């Protein structure tokens, strides 16, 4: 190709891996350029694994993991992390739950102690459970019920696209399910999924590998061994005819629409999957992208547009089944049918004519920037490496992603676009409730 390409740079973060006798997998990635560290513990359980009748349980349990543990009172975890100058959080995804902190590097041993203590056993009390059910209900109110477009599309689109409980249910959970959760439910969930053999610990930043290894053995070595549970198969057949639904959002002032198509298995068929990740950016990344140029600027059919792979915008930490999503907000009285038709037309055009001169290379250059920027923070590095280890046994893939993205070809992007047919699409429309 004639267009001069920006050379796609790579990182060379070193990666040390080992497994403790109790099955805990460990990834270390030292970088002594700033006196800070990132610590991440990832458990291989997410929204898809929660039992029927217990919607929202994986997330509720994430809250309970902060409520005290074997040697720590309620509130102690927060105080010890922040009192060491750090910040912390946890998050629940479709396929995993993570816990993490980022701190000045003099707090390494403290952070390891805190994570090991709750891996041995959180304090699961009735009082803490009721308190955190209340907190989670407020979280759902602030993020979903009390605001326009709450849960759109990550909570509202999966039930259109999928049929089985694991893939289709509301991962935030119903108030009824949350309120009926019990301490024995939590204890069972912990025993089953929070096993040392089902977890990965990653530490990044200003560490000495030998010293960190000693400290990890000291604190995690005697966490009782429990094997990982067998992960069920969550596969569902692809759609063979278009699915479309709508709902009224009483708080929303403008129409919105999201559509999604299934993509190849991100883990077992990474080579086939990657072109879809690139395609999403070719379509939507910035003013020079296909759909923004057409729908926002030329047709003025939408006011904003986004696209990504993975319902939570997480192309490199999700397992099958997942999807490429496009979402748009429309002007008042906007025509959702027309927007979907235009998207089909642009996908056809891409499938037929391929990308324009330089279009793919510039998209890849910007994707590289995004990937590098995310790994600049030590915590971003630890979290991603932990999940790459867990799902692929390949934490060093993080270093290769910019290059691999850069190797996706015009032909692959074109072939990916050709599969995004209307009959494989699930879509959902938000009808504004007249709150204008």
């Amino acid at each position, binding site marked *: 190709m004639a267009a001069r390409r*920006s050379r796609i740079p790579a990182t060379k973060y070193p990666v040390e891996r080992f497994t403790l006798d109790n099955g805990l997998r460990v990834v270390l990635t030292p970088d002594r350029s700033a006196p800070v560290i990132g610590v991440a513990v990832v458990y291989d359980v997410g929204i898809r694994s929660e039992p029927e009748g217990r919607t929202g349980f994986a997330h509720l349990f994430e809250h309970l993991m902060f409520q005290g543990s074997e040697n720590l009172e309620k509130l102690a975890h927060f105080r010890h992390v922040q009192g060491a*100058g*750090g910040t912390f959080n946890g998050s629940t995804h479709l396929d995993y739950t993570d816990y993490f902190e980022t701190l000045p590097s003099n707090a390494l041993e403290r952070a390891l*102690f805190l994570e090991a203590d709750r891996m041995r056993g959180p304090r699961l009390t009735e009082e803490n459970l009721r308190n955190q059910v209340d907190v989670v*209900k407020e979280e759902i109110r602030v993020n979903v019920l009390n605001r326009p477009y709450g849960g759109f599309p990550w909570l509202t689109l999966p039930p259109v696209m999928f049929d089985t409980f694991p893939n289709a249910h509301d991962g935030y959970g119903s108030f009824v399910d949350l309120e009926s959760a019990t301490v024995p439910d939590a204890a069972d969930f912990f025993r089953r999924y929070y096993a040392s053999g089902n977890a990965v610990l990653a530490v990044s930043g200003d560490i000495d590998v030998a010293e960190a290894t000693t400290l990890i053995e000291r604190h995690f070595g005697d966490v009782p061994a429990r094997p990982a549970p067998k992960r069920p198969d969550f596969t569902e057949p692809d759609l063979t005819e278009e699915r479309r639904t709508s709902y009224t959002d009483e708080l929303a002032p403008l129409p919105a629409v999201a559509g999604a198509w299934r993509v190849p298995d991100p883990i077992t068929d990474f080579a086939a999957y990657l072109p879809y990740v690139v395609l999403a950016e070719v379509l939507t990344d910035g003013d020079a992208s296909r759909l923004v140029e057409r729908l926002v600027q030329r047709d003025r059919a939408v006011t904003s547009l986004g696209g990504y792979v993975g319902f939570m915008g997480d192309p490199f930490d999700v397992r099958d089944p997942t999807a490429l999503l496009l979402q748009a907000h429309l002007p008042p009285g906007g025509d959702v049918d027309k927007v979907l038709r235009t998207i089909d037309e642009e996908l056809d055009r891409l499938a037929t004519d391929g990308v324009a001169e330089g279009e793919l290379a510039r998209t890849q250059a910007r994707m590289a920037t995004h990937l590098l920027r995310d790994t600049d923070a030590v915590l971003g590095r630890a979290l991603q490496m932990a999940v790459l280890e867990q799902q692929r046994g390949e934490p060093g893939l993080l270093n290769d992603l910019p290059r691999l993205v850069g190797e996706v070809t015009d032909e692959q992007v074109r072939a990916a676009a050709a599969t995004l047919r209307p009959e494989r699409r699930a879509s959902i429309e938000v009808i504004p409730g007249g709150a204008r």
Partner: protein
Amino acid sequence: MSVTAPAAPRALPPLGPNRRLKLPKQAERTLGNGLTVIAVRRPAVPLVEVRLWMPFGRAHLARGAVLAQTLLSGTGTMSSVQIAAELQKVGGGLSAGIDPDRLMLSGAGLVTGLDRMLEILAEVLTDAAYPNDDVATERDRLVDRIHVARSQPAHLARTALLRRVYGSHPYAVQTPEPEAVRAVRPGALRALHAQRVHPADAVLVLVGDVQPDRALDAAEKALSGWTGAGHTADLPPAPPLEPGPLLLVDRPGAVQSSLRIALPAVPRTHPDHAALQLANLIFGGYFSSRWVENIREDKGYTYGGHSLVEHSVAGSVLVAAVDVATEVTGPALLETTYELGRLASLPPREDELEQARQYALGTLQLGMSTQAGLASLTSAYAGSGLRLEFLAEHAARLAKATVADVAEAAARYLAPAQAVTVVLGDAERIGPQVAALAPVTTEPARP
């Protein structure tokens, strides 16, 4: 009950020695046209961050908003798509944003593209065209965005608080009316650009895998042709807070209430700043604060609350914000007032202060540990006339603030008697609850 029976208690490991705050290598130059350029080296990833801060006080609200939205919509030689594509080629992107103090262009890209990014930046600054079609499109998009914002409780609560705190000061209204946006014409944007987008008093920050001197040269080469002394406008100082009845803003049917409380604060350079920052942390400025532990972890009223000292050119203010369940609005307000009053009247414990101090010092280190963090910090400081060296001075002040200093700051700034309080929620359901605690005036939610 606990999942596993506790064994012999294990002791919390001590912290290692604190690492000294080390400032990165940097350089600064003021160009002939008045532009200050600051370049900071952090070579962790092969990228560079760009922040251009331009003073923009007292600009016409709607025109300023549309200008920010259309600044990158074309030049004499490039269309909006070409600008975006040219930036994309070097892995870059730029976006423009505005607030009552400044117009800001921010972005990042591959460090190999720095020269090209600066060239494009210069072209936009000297030759932005505000094409008719693009302006029309972006105007409509902005109007739609304003409508969406007005349906968000956080926006409505903020709007009501700003109006109540700032009265007739330019900070009082920060979102333009849709009609005013629709009335903006390209000619007005070109005039505003000519009048206000100029290098005098502007600060460009470049942070990343760059040799600072070489980055300054690149900036000088690209941006020396940007000229114009134009017009500046100083903001009057923000008015002092005037406590009064609680303002209850009615949002019928709301399932939560949004509490917003403003308290007095001081600028970063004020002798009380470090002690106030620590007092704020102890009250509600981080998760392990009294307020969050009380209303979230003890009582389950909320997903989270946060208090923050906000610094603007015309003044500083402390804002506490929390969304709580409708049925516990009164009790949540009671606990909030209680925690403010308790800290304003009784000194904090030594261990509470140490914990807050470590947090403040540690998060300084964390904030400096990425290119993007350093760039935002450098730019925010530069906007208040400060440089990164101030971080070290501030860290020293945080390190030596005593319980007495913090107690004094709390008494001076956190006393609930000085608070301006706004609550957005379902007035019919929460009115009686809050009226039991404070005199109340009620108004409908207004955008």
